[in-house]
């Protein structure tokens, strides 16, 4: 019994320690698209789906990247900033689109952290927009 209590305490302390501190979270995913970087970049600029969830901060034609901030307020993450950039692929008819998101959990104070306001919840929620978002964009470019 004592052992179990100690084990539980250890888990409690270690998990609270892990989600502790002012640590920005990062979700970075990329997808390979069968189109030239120029074509992909043009498509990205005109793709409206991303603008429904994020606000465009800036375009950079030379570096082929778009910076985003957040529109939605009722999300389990905060201080969200992202960039999507187009890079060269393995050949001239291939490009890589990379989405990097930087954000924090919603709870900023001292632990204990309330359920649903921790790092893991924030990361899971952002992954839900990044993965399917990139897949949708790929489909849209390749079907054109």
């Amino acid at each position, binding site marked *: 019994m004592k052992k179990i209590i100690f084990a539980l305490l250890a888990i409690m302390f270690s998990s609270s320690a892990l989600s502790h501190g002012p640590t920005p979270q*990062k979700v970075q995913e990329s997808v390979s698209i069968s189109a030239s970087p120029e074509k992909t970049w043009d498509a990205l600029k005109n793709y409206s789906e991303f603008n429904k969830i994020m606000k465009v901060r800036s375009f950079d034609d030379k570096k082929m990247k778009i910076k985003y901030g957040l529109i939605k307020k009722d999300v389990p993450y905060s201080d969200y900033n992202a960039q999507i950039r187009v890079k060269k692929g393995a050949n001239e008819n291939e490009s890589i689109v990379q989405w*990097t998101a*930087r954000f924090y959990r919603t709870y900023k104070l001292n632990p204990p952290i309330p359920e649903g306001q921790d790092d893991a919840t924030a990361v899971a929620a952002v992954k839900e927009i990044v993965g399917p978002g990139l897949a949708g964009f790929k489909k849209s470019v390749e079907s054109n």
Partner: protein
Amino acid sequence: MVNQKKLLIFNSKIFYFFILTFFLVILYFNFLYDFKREYISKAYITNQGDNTVSIIDLTTLKKVKTLKVGVAPLGITILQNKKLVFVGNVGTDDISVIDAVDDVLIKTIKLNTAPLSLASNPEETEVYITDWFKNNVITISVEEMKVTRSSKVGKTPSGITFNKKHQYKIITNRDENTIEIYDKNYNLVRKVNTGKHPFGVFSEGDFAYAANVYDDSVSVISLIDWSMYEFLVGAHPYNVRVHDKLAYITNTIDDTLTIYDLDSKKTIKTLDTGETPENLDLNIKLNLLVITNWGDDSISIFDTQNFKFIKEIKTGAQSRSFGDFILQ
């Protein structure tokens, strides 16, 4: 007859000249060797995403080692004479101490609170740490390797630095938009309002500089008459360093570095960095500027004489290094 000839050689000036030259050559090579050995400079990069420190040799521009530290390492400071590196782990609430000669972890100091940034006094007898959640500055005795003091400061103390000339500890309090100046005895000398969300801080001579994340600006504060002015930089500046009348600022959202001339009060150059450049440090002898790119898991190295990009080197995940991270 033969013996006499030999003796003649020993007495000749040419012989002594050769001996002397021989020793001089040996001395020269010894000196060269020592010089080279003395000039080892390394950058210590805290990788918050994988709980490691990447060690980069700045003379060869190669990664030489990766060390495991505590969870989510962020802040860092280096004791240049004692050759010790102090790293703050915000996930495990402790400090990892690295011996910078052999690059091994020699001590873990438990804090029981999240260390944000670190700085030492010039004598290297003490290390000061900002305690983000509990609004303290914690003092560690370097000799004893333990906490000796904890003092209340402003809200969410973030950056900390030590001004050698005035013997001040200088702290940015992010959520209350202030910079605080404390004397040797931890008495508050002055509290000055900055821009919004002051984070990284630097101080030298009679000035302190704070990067205001939400205002896209840097506050310059006079430590003599407490006058202040601000200048604009790129989006979401994180940290600032000053050398030779030039201020270098990392703009996290723009992926750029601003170089601002403090004399002419003009931005003289904006350089492209990697993704989300957070922190920076300089090696004056090698004329190098090193920037940590959180988004690219790398560092970018620039030449401070011509502002040219030299090299990007991969680090661990989410490279940050908040503080002075170069062993000079």
